[in-house]
């Protein structure tokens, strides 16, 4: 894989995987 593909893969998976985790945490994480 080229460095460009690797960086892009991390960005996309970060956006959707990270985004999904972020919103799940917002929904179910410990409330203040």
């Amino acid at each position, binding site marked *: 894989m080229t460095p460009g*593909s690797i960086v892009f893969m991390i960005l996309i998976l970060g956006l959707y995987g990270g985004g999904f985790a972020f919103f799940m945490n917002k929904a179910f994480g410990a409330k203040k």
Partner: protein
Amino acid sequence: MQQKKSETFATRFGFIAAGIGMAVGTGNVWRFPRVTAANGGGAFLIALTVAMFVYAIPLLLAEMAIARKTRLGTIGAMRDFMGKKFTWVGGWLALVALGVMFYYSVVAGWTIKYLVLSLQGTFSGPDITPEVTESIWLTFLDTPVQTILFHGVSMLFGAIVIYKGVTAGIEKVTKIMVPTLFVLLTLVMIRGVTLPGAADGLVFLFTPNLEVLLGSRVWLEAFTQAAWSTGAGWALLMTYAVYTKDEEDLSVNCFIIGFGDVLVGLIAAMAILPTVYSLSPTIEAAQAAMGSGNNGLIFVYLSALFARMPGGTIVAVIFFLALAFAALSSLLSMIEVGVLNLMDAGWERGKATIYVCVAGFLVGVPSAYSINFLDNQDWVWGVGLLISGLLISVAIMKYGVEKVRNEDINHAHSDMVIGPWWSFMIRIFPAVFAVIFGWWTWQSIGWYPGEWWKPFEVFTPGTMFFQWGVGAIILIALNDKMANWIRPGTFDLEAQSQASMKKEG
């Protein structure tokens, strides 16, 4: 007298699982990887991300807001939200969702059949070539007893779950199916990316050919994928949101469903593309697989590739189980659209379920019998869903975009404030619709030079407009009957307007 729904999702996770189950369907598994590969890989993913924020998420939020305000199925919701003379709009939403349900149950049946085949060890051994799997696929399609039987099995599964109700049926089942689906697809992905040469598939998926973004096709495909994959504008999430509690958040739930949907597509793509590129004997064979359409990719090529994969027999079972879960969890939401509308008319859930599922089975039989008929229905109601999206955006604009955002989306229990970007996206929606709808219609005219108007061809604009026209005329004729048929909900636009006029007077 105004009534509230007595049934509700018992937990927030239950609603989210049902919502993701609704959104994630066969399209995530077989369309997402194929369309991504055909449209510049990474470039398509960038366009899809834009489409998610311009099309899918705004529309899903709009659906949930309408449902929460009216607490009725599509017909009653549009009667109360838009006014009595627009009741037919709710009828249209139900018609299109059920139009999809009739053939989608057949597709779900295919996935069950392939799960059974994989359990029997069909996709193992050196003799399993694409020619053999193509023959298995065509033989299956040409055996109506089988296609109708498996269509019946999927509809029976849907009937049992929906009959049990929201908490004991939909919530209980999707809380198991959706997380399992994530795990199963992840297992197939791990197997795919650890195959020798898998990187070729990943390069194809994640190389951002940015010049592709200068063309129009990638954008149109991305917006179409966002609409069809997330279920935005289908009124399926609108139906489920009727059963949420008053204090339930809309915005974060909506983002979870939207992001979860794309995430499943990405996992499926990372499972399928490396497998295809690693195990195909030549790069041309891999490209032939990716260009062979949804059914060809999965039921012909991938099935054959499982036979070449170490541990492929087990991977095939896991994959087809995941595919069946994806299909069946979406089918549930389509059945519920019909059932909720009948319940709003005073029917018991059990009776409504039996009528919808028996009708669903019978009307689905022609699609099980003929792939051309199924393709025609997929074309007509698939594009019809874009119109449903347009109608939902118009409904929001008619009521007041800012009013909905301030009162219904950003309510006291919201976990996240939705900014004015949402209002902007809803307002530009008709223009976005015109471009996508115009593109599909224009393309289909090119498929049938000189014959595009014919109503009995598989993919003509003529067949779309003919079937929509018949449906719309019947619905408009029945407008008042439908308006009186549905019980009152929790909100009535006309009653509210009269009350405020009296107050002012």
